[in-house]
């Protein structure tokens, strides 16, 4: 089942299949090498060593020192930790946070929750959500203008998960640094896929999630530059040098190290291969289907694996259902099933109208993607779009 592909998988930005070599590396830690890494005996030391090897693999991938890598239970946890931990440790200076309108919910909802708590009598916090332009870029001028004496954290994602726009992160980190503000970036969609380094710019905190590059789900990491003031999110045991309590998810951490190391050796060739494939899919959709809009940036400022289109007059879920009936997996910015009924905040932030946001579909490529898969997609997509448009009152 692993070797053949029973379905067309275009949702690699949601998650990726586990890399077989990562699985091999993990397996012993489920069975004979089950020791608690805090144990003083041999199988405990063995597990500890495995974690530290993974720490080195992750550190190497982003140009960090291994002592600056802290494993977490997800990218979401790392984002929560960065935001809440910095806010908590910087109370004397202030409580103003700057982020953007296109962050993942794992940043936006954290900020909104803090604002809600502040309003109902909790500790104060103020959040500025920077706008983006029509391609999803944050402006350096907007960022500089938003900084105040009480700003304690700037959090801007490296690359957007829905539209693939890659921000000039080094520039933003410089601005933060010059103003003495801690800089965090959610690099979940970037790490492993495009060059990411904490050596090129004064980034303080950087979020990683394993399952976006062939590691298992439920493991992530926060890079914390030496000297960055941040409180712990989880209290308890002395794991991760007293900064992230909880017995380590040894097997998954090992899998994350292995998968990231493999991704780094393949990064350059995959970047070229996927960029070509991405542009091929973009061209073919534009050619085969009228009235489509590419959401996000083009060229090198777009993730090599991201394609996102709005298809005029039709709602995203209905496209996904037809694709699913043909064993094709993609995702949508429509939100008919979400409690708020609000469509993708990312597409809306580009200045699009509700209709365009509800009609957006993301196709994200990955290590196993092939041109045959794209051919198979293009054999069904245009007729589905036509079929749905024939049913749409907006197309009249």
């Amino acid at each position, binding site marked *: 089942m692993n070797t053949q592909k029973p379905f067309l998988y275009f949702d690699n930005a949601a998650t990726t299949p586990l890399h077989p070599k990562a699985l091999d590396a993990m397996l012993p830690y489920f069975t004979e090498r089950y020791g608690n890494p805090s144990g003083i005996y041999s199988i405990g030391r063995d597990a500890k060593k495995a974690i530290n090897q993974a720490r080195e693999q992750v550190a190497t991938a982003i140009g960090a020192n291994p002592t600056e890598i802290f494993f977490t239970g997800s990218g979401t946890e790392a984002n929560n930790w960065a935001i809440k931990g910095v806010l908590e440790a910087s109370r004397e200076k202030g409580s103003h946070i700057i982020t953007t309108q296109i962050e993942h919910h794992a940043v936006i909802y954290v900020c909104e929750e803090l604002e809600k708590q502040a309003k109902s009598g909790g500790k104060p916090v103020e959040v500025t959500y920077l706008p983006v332009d029509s391609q999803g870029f944050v402006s350096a001028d907007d960022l500089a203008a938003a900084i105040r004496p009480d700003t304690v954290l700037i959090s801007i994602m490296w690359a957007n998960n829905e539209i693939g726009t890659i921000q000039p992160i080094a520039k933003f980190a410089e601005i933060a640094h010059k103003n003495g503000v801690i800089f965090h970036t959610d690099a979940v969609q970037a790490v492993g896929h495009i060059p990411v380094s904490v050596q090129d710019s004064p980034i303080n905190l950087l979020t990683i999630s394993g399952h976006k590059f062939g590691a298992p789900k439920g493991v992530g990491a926060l890079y914390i530059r030496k000297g960055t003031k941040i409180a712990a999110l989880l209290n308890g045991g002395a794991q991760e040098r007293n900064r992230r309590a909880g017995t380590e998810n040894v097997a998954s951490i090992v899998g994350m190290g292995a998968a990231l190391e493999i991704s780094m050796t393949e990064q350059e060739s995959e970047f070229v291969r996927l960029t070509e494939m991405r542009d091929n899919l973009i061209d073919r959709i534009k050619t085969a289907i009228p009235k489509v809009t590419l959401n996000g940036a083009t060229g090198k400022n777009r993730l090599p694996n991201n394609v996102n289109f709005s298809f005029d007059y039709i709602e995203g879920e209905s496209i996904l259902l037809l694709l699913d009936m043909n064993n094709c997996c993609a995702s949508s910015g*429509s939100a008919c099933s979400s409690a708020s009924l609000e469509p993708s905040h990312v597409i809306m932030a580009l200045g699009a109208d509700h*209709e365009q946001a509800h009609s957006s579909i993301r196709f994200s490529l990955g290590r196993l993607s092939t041109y045959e898969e794209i051919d198979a997609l293009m054999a069904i997509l245009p007729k589905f779009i036509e079929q749905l448009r024939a*049913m749409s009152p907006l197309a009249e």
Partner: protein
Amino acid sequence: MEYTEKVMDHFANPRNVGTIENASGVGTVGNAQCGDIMKVYLKIEDNIVEDAKFKTFGCGAAVATSSMATELIIGKTIDEALKITNKTVMDALGGLPPVKVHCSCLAEEALHAALWDYAEKHGITIDGLKPPEEVEH
């Protein structure tokens, strides 16, 4: 979230898609903000709904409920048609996931809006029928 087989059938093979020329009544409900828009056309003769067609921009539940609602209304008297609620439509589809119940409300509203339009055009009052809410564009 999972749809019943019946819902998927009505979504994939919707009945009564289209428009009716010189329809007796047309109703449009929903808006692009919430993501579902339904337009229902009715042909009414001698107090009987002779034909119904729809066009829908929306999710699977919106399409399936439009399809089922038009199926249910064809052949009914106006009084019977008025008794078709979102619950009738949902039950006929074997249920909907809780997050999708709001989509079925649109189907009921669309039928009522089309009946209202019919009543207005023909200068009659239909007991128990309320005017549809304004459609945002």
